[in-house]
């Protein structure tokens, strides 16, 4: 079996998610006789035969993945998603409506889903009730038990001798939608102050992504009452500082996004010989024998020579980790799951004759390109960027509203309209063929709508505009399936946000 993970961009390849989730099991899948690779979504092209039997979309939260999944399914491939960030459970948060709509849209094409935690499984299952799900625990990097024991002991000794605790906070410091990262560090900073009160100096290192180092981010860590050194994250620095630090400080807040996170930060720290202090939500409960939740308990153990991670407990740690992220075991379970998925015949669905994507106010140009690469129609709305070379757009002039079609779109038109086509030139300067809406769909409300300049590009008319365009297109191209490409949240609101799994249709 050939398996491909589909990623949104090249930058994504360097992210922790990819490194931890896929690269640590890749060699094991290959050893078991499977082909495994990570592809960028821009490589999916109808002119290039699909090599894999099974595709897993990872972090592709826009219409590109919906179009690519449509294409893969039409080619008889198995399609799934891997979800390890919870952008879907906050049903009252209008900022995230595009994520929820994305998951609903993907639900139609998904044969299965992967996720990182039981909680994430519950969330996704509500949207995809018919698709089987599998929890792929973040696999840990192989580590040497003896080294961990030795280093943990050395670091504890040094801390007692110098009366100083080397602490590391590491991770993504920001998120556009949630208060996490540096904000958590600042909010729980008092735990570090408590160590000072107990007679130890604290040397805090902060490793995070550059994007998080905004004025607001810096202001929040600037309020920490312990001295700290801020550095830009890299995998090498993380390794180096975890090995050097006695303690990894990993506070977790209680919001849905944070409580759905995997154990990977704690596992990474433990396997690099760092103790863990994790105040806040007990995310790391499965590892509770190795995790402190208060600074006092940590200092008590340090002074008592009984750190949770020490020579005597490393065997128990190994046993525990074998359950929660042993790469060997995780790849075996994954293979078992994927085999079953591939062997289950996909429910037959009515073939889709045409597929199109309507672009909204903020639609990535990559979506437009992806649609055309896959042989689907890229459709302009009155709000979308005017200069793209769309397959379908509606223009208004003194003779009324005209639909303009590219060569690809012309082929899809119902035959009765073909003889009414007239030649024209698109605003992008391309030769197109045109249909007068007045002639082919007399009395259609799109005519009145487009004639009113005030209405054409307003938020309040967004919903109406999309529906009118959808309606016209479904009449001109019978059976067309339309998706919306929109990253600007308020506009999605017009489509309503009902129960998980129930999806609004444009036409």
């Amino acid at each position: 079996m050939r398996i491909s993970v589909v990623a949104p961009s090249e930058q994504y390849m360097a992210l922790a998610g990819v490194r931890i989730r896929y690269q640590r099991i890749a060699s094991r899948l290959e050893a078991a006789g499977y082909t495994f690779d990570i592809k960028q979504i821009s490589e999916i092209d109808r002119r290039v035969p699909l090599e894999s039997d099974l595709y897993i979309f990872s972090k592709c939260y826009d219409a590109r993945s919906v179009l690519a999944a449509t294409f893969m399914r039409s080619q008889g491939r198995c399609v799934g998603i891997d979800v390890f960030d919870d952008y879907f459970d906050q049903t009252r948060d209008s900022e995230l409506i595009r994520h929820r709509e994305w998951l609903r849209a993907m639900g139609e094409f998904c044969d299965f889903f992967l996720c990182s935690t039981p909680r994430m499984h519950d969330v996704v299952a509500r949207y995809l009730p018919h698709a089987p799900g599998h929890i792929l625990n973040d696999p840990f990097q192989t580590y040497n038990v003896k080294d961990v024991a030795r280093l943990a002991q050395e670091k504890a000794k040094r801390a007692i001798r110098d009366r100083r605790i080397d602490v590391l906070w590491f991770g993504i410091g920001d998120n556009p939608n949630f208060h996490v990262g540096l904000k958590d560090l600042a909010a729980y900073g008092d735990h570090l102050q408590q160590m000072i009160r107990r007679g130890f100096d604290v040397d805090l290192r902060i490793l995070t992504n550059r994007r998080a180092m905004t004025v607001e981010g810096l202001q929040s860590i600037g309020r920490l009452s312990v001295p700290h050194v801020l550095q830009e994250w890299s995998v090498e620095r993380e390794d180096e500082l975890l090995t050097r630090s006695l303690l990894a400080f990993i506070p977790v807040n209680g919001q849905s996004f944070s409580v759905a996170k995997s154990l990977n930060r704690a596992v990474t720290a433990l396997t690099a010989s760092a103790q863990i202090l994790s105040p806040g939500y007990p995310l790391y409960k499965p590892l509770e024998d190795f995790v402190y939740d208060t600074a006092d308990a940590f200092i008590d153990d340090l002074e008592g020579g009984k750190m949770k991670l020490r020579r005597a407990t490393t065997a128990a740690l190994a046993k525990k980790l074998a359950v929660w992220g042993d790469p060997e075991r995780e790849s075996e379970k994954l293979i078992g799951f994927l085999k079953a998925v591939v062997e289950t015949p996909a429910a037959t669905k009515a073939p889709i004759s045409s597929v199109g994507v309507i672009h909204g106010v903020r639609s990535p140009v990559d979506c437009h390109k992806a649609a055309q690469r896959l042989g689907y129609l890229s459709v302009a709305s009155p709000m979308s960027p005017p200069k793209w070379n769309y397959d379908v757009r509606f223009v208004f002039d003194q003779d009324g509203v005209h639909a303009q079609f590219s060569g690809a779109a012309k082929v899809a038109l119902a035959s009765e309209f073909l003889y009414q086509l007239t030649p024209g030139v698109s605003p992008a300067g391309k030769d197109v063929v045109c249909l007068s809406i007045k002639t082919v769909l007399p009395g259609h409300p799109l005519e009145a709508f487009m004639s009113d300049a005030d209405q054409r590009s307003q938020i309040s008319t967004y919903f109406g505009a999309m529906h009118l365009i959808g309606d016209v297109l479904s009449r001109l191209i019978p059976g067309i399936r339309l998706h919306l490409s929109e990253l600007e949240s308020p506009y999605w609101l017009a489509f309503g946000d009902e129960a998980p799994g129930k999806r609004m249709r444009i036409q």
Partner: protein
Amino acid sequence: MSRRHVVFILNLLQDVNIVRPLALLAAESIDVDIALLVSDRFLLRDKQGVWKDEVEALARRVTAEIFIYEGVESAYRWLSDKYGALFAASESNLSAHYEVHDVFRTAPAGFVKITLQHGLECVGFLQNREHDKAHGEAVRFAADLVAGWLDGPRLTSMAPSERAKLVVTGPGLVLQRPPTGSQSVAEGLVCENLHSVRLSASGDFRVSFMDLFFDFCESLASEGKKVALRPHPGGQYVLKNKLSLPGNVVLANEPIYRTDLGAFRYGVSAPSSVVLDMVLAGIPTAVWADCGGVMDTRHYEGLTFITSMADWQAFRRDALERPEMILERQARYVRDLGMPVEPQDVRARFLNLMELGSRRWSPPGAAELRQSSKHQR
């Protein structure tokens, strides 16, 4: 933690003029580490590399470290193990000042942050109508303290939220000791600040200023005299726009602290702080204003104004033949401003500020906590 610091931020090219006398003062008077925190944009702005050399020379003279910061996070990291006083010559919430404003917003608690008034008319301190139009009337600072030239009631543009931050120091420029007794290169000095919103926010006055200047040059040429033209250090309008200048114009583009203003027999400028430099240097000074009276010149009221060629020539005649009359008027103007201008006085005021900034509390370590709890017992 390192020794206490006095750090000066340099972002706009003209900041050097403001910061330099204070860096020299700190170096000769107090026992601190001095550092110059220079934005990467400063180097970009300094296309000819002139100011980079000036900054390096200053750093050598006061034994200061220079750190060039690229973005707020690198300044944050550099400052994070230091404490003391942090001075900036151009800091406010205006977009033109964000490089410094953000450093102030994120500076560690161990620093007292002080924004310096950098001109008589200065955003957030004392604005003219053109400033108000261009920048609004609610300019704010991220500083803990702002060092003003005048006392509170006269700084009419300070937002109520900022007033409690005001410490009156007077202008640092009176601490400059420019060369004296040099040979004059020209009879008079004309200063241009054509880049300024003062000459564009209420209409384009640049042309009328330059036309009048060219006429004046011509009349001087007929007498075989020369005139010096000084472009604003940050604006450099005549150079950037490659204006062709009459043959009897000498460019005076040295930094103000190396210009012997006293060597000129008179000076002329559109409303700008350089007017005050010339007044304090004791040369007859005239303020140019547009003939329609559109520009807001109220903060210079009391000085000699010129709007036409006749005014200009009359001013020159008076300056050459009866300078005392103009100088007396100028002395009255300075007195009426109520601005501290005695170097000893201004020096003491700035030193107070630097000492204050050097005694800021920083979080105690474990040893200090142990010490203080023993003490309490």
